[in-house]
C-alpha cells in the first residue's frame, strides 16, 4: 500500500524539519544591520546599472511616418567591417538577416530590464516594482534612485521616484519620454505644461531646470551632462503644436537656458544632440523618402544617408544607431549603426519575409553594443547587437502581444 508509506514519510519529514528548526538558536538581527545590507544592495544595483557603460543613451523613436527613399546615398563602408571583436569565434556577418532564432545566449543587459513587474539587474539581483501604473521607461541612477515613467490605460503619463533611502515620491504629471544623462547622475522628463524637470541623484525632490516650453505636447528625447555647475545637463525636447502639427526641437539646459536644437536650420527633426556639438537627425522628410545626417559644428552636415533614420550617438560618440527610414506599424524591420566620423555603415540587420522580425526600443549598452527589444513569431527577446555585426540573446524570449513589448530596457525612452 502506497498511502501509509507516504504518510509515514510525510509525518517523519515534518517532525524532522520542525526538530531541526526548533533547535536553532537565533542571533538577533538589528535594524542597523538590515539597513546596512539594504544600502549595500542599492549600491550594487546602482553600480550594476553603470557598469560597463559610460552611459546608456535614450534613443528617440521618430514619430514621423516616413516612406521609402530613393537616392542621396553616401558610399557605405565595408559590409563586414569589424570594429570591436567579440567573444564569438565564428565569422560575423555584419549584413546577416534580422533573425533571433538560434542566437547564442549572452550575459543579461548591463543596464537592467524590467518584465512582469520585476526589475532584473546584471548581477542577477531582482526587485519588485509596484508602481501605480504600467512602467514604459525607467532608470536607476548612480545612488540607486529608481525613476519610473508610467502610463495609464488612457495614455496619461506620470513619473514615480524611489530615492536612495527607499522613500517614494510622486507621481508627478509627465508628458512622454524619460531620459538619463551619460553618468546616470540625473533623469529628465517634461510635464504636460512644458516644464522640464530633472531628478538628480541624492536629491529628494525634482528640479525645474528652465522656464516652461511654449506650445503643445512635449516629449523628452535624450539628455547629456550630469546637471552639475561644471557640466550642465542638456535635455532634448520636442514640442508639437496641436493645431498645426508642427514640431520643434529644443535643448533645455540646467543652466536655465533654452535654445533651438539646430539653430543653423539644417535638420527638420533632431534625433540626438551631444554635449560636444554633435547633432543627428532628419534633413529631409518627403512624401516618399527621407534623409538623415550628422553635423559636428555650425556649418554644413558632415555626412548624410537616405537608407536609414539616425537615432542616437554611442556613449563615446564614435557611432550612431539607425533604423528604418520607413516606420509603419509597431517597429522597425532593420537595425544598423554608422561610424560618426566617416559615415560608413558598420552593420545592418534587416528582416526578411522569412524572418518577420522587428525592433522596437533600442538603447546603447556600452560604446560598442546596442540592446534592442525584438519581436519574432509571437515572442519578445532582448538582443545584443555588436558593432562588428554580432548578435546574441541578452534576455530570453517572452511571449507577448505583437504591439507592446513585455520587456522594458532601462534607459529606453
Amino acid at each position, binding site marked *: 500500500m502506497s498511502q501509509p508509506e507516504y504518510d509515514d514519510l510525510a509525518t517523519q519529514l515534518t517532525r524532522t*524539519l520542525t526538530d531541526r*528548526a526548533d533547535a536553532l538558536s537565533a542571533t538577533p538581527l538589528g535594524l542597523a544591520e538590515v539597513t546596512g545590507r539594504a544600502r549595500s544592495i542599492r549600491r550594487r544595483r546602482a553600480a550594476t546599472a553603470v557598469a560597463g557603460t559610460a552611459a546608456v543613451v535614450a534613443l528617440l523613436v521618430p514619430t514621423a511616418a516616413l516612406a521609402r527613399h530613393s537616392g542621396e546615398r553616401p558610399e557605405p563602408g565595408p559590409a563586414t567591417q569589424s570594429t570591436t571583436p567579440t567573444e564569438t569565434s565564428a565569422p560575423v556577418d555584419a549584413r546577416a538577416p534580422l533573425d533571433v532564432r538560434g542566437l547564442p545566449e549572452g550575459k543579461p543587459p548591463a543596464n537592467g530590464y524590467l518584465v512582469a513587474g520585476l526589475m532584473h539587474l546584471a548581477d542577477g539581483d531582482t526587485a519588485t516594482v509596484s508602481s501605480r501604473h504600467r512602467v514604459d521607461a525607467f532608470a536607476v541612477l548612480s545612488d540607486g534612485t529608481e525613476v519610473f515613467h508610467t502610463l495609464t490605460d488612457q495614455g496619461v503619463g506620470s513619473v514615480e521616484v524611489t530615492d536612495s533611502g*527607499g522613500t517614494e515620491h510622486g507621481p508627478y504629471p509627465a508628458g512622454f519620454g524619460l531620459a538619463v544623462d551619460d553618468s546616470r547622475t540625473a533623469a529628465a522628463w517634461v510635464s504636460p505644461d512644458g516644464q522640464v524637470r530633472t531628478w538628480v541623484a541624492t536629491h529628494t525632490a525634482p528640479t525645474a531646470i528652465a522656464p516652461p516650453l511654449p506650445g503643445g505636447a512635449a516629449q523628452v528625447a535624450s539628455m547629456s551632462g550630469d546637471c552639475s555647475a561644471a557640466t550642465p545637463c542638456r535635455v532634448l525636447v520636442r514640442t508639437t503644436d496641436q493645431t498645426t502639427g508642427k514640431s520643434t526641437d529644443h535643448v533645455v539646459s540646467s543652466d536655465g537656458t533654452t535654445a533651438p536644437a539646430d539653430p543653423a536650420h539644417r535638420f527638420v527633426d533632431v534625433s540626438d544632440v551631444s554635449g560636444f556639438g554633435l547633432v543627428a537627425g532628419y534633413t529631409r522628410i518627403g512624401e516618399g523618402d527621407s534623409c538623415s545626417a550628422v553635423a559636428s559644428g555650425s556649418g554644413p552636415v558632415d555626412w548624410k544617408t537616405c537608407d536609414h533614420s539616425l537615432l542616437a550617438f554611442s556613449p563615446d560618440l564614435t557611432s550612431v544607431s539607425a533604423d528604418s527610414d520607413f516606420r509603419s506599424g509597431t517597429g522597425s524591420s532593420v537595425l544598423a549603426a554608422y561610424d560618426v566620423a566617416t559615415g560608413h555603415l558598420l552593420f545592418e540587420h534587416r528582416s526578411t519575409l522569412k524572418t518577420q522580425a522587428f525592433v522596437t526600443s533600442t538603447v546603447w549598452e556600452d560604446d560598442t553594443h546596442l540592446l534592442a527589444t525584438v519581436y519574432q513569431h509571437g515572442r519578445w527577446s532582448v538582443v545584443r547587437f555588436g558593432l562588428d555585426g554580432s548578435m546574441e540573446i541578452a534576455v530570453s524570449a517572452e511571449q507577448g502581444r505583437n504591439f507592446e513589448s513585455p520587456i522594458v530596457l532601462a534607459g529606453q525612452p
Partner: protein
Amino acid sequence: MDRPPEDRTGATAVAERRTARDSDFAAYLAARQPSLLRTAYLLTGNRHDAEDLVQTAFAKLYLSWDKVRDRGSIDGYVRRILVNEHNSLWRRAWKRREHAADDVVLHALEEPHHDLADDGVGSALWDVVQTLPRRARAVVVLRYYEELSEAETAAVLGISVGTVKSQTSRALAALRERAPQTLNPRTSEEDDPS
C-alpha cells in the same frame, strides 16, 4: 547653474516619514525574524548561510517597504524573497566560491543539536533532505515545515501547481529511496522474513 530642488521644506517631512517607516519596519523585523531564520536554516542547511539569507531578505523587504501596500501580504512577500534569493543561480555560484574551503568546518561547528530519540532516523532523513536540489528542497520545506498548500507553495516559488506536485513527488521518491529503511516499507517488507 543648478537650481535648488523645488521642495526644500519637504525635506523635514521626508525625514519624519522615514523615521516612522523605520519604526514600523523594526517592529516587523523583531516579530518575524525568528520564524524566517528557521525557514532559512532548513533551506540552506547551516546557520551562517541562513543568517545571511535572512539579512538579505529583510534588506530587500526594507527597500520595498513603502511599496507593499497590503500589510497583510508581507509575510508571504518576504518568504517569497527569501526562497527566490536562495534559489538564485548567482547566489549559488557566489556561495560555492565563498564557502567551498570551510564548508566542513562550518557544518561541524554550527549544526544545532537535536533529539536522537528516533534512533537516528530524523538525522538520516535530514542528511538526505540536504542532498535534494534547491528547488526540490524549497518545495519540501514549504510543504512539510511551513505546511503551505500546493497553491501557496506555487505562489511563493512562482511556479505552477502542477510543478509543485511533480517536484514534491520526485522529492519524496528520492527521500524514500535514500532514507533509512524504516521509512521504506517496500524494503522493510522485503527484508521481513515473515
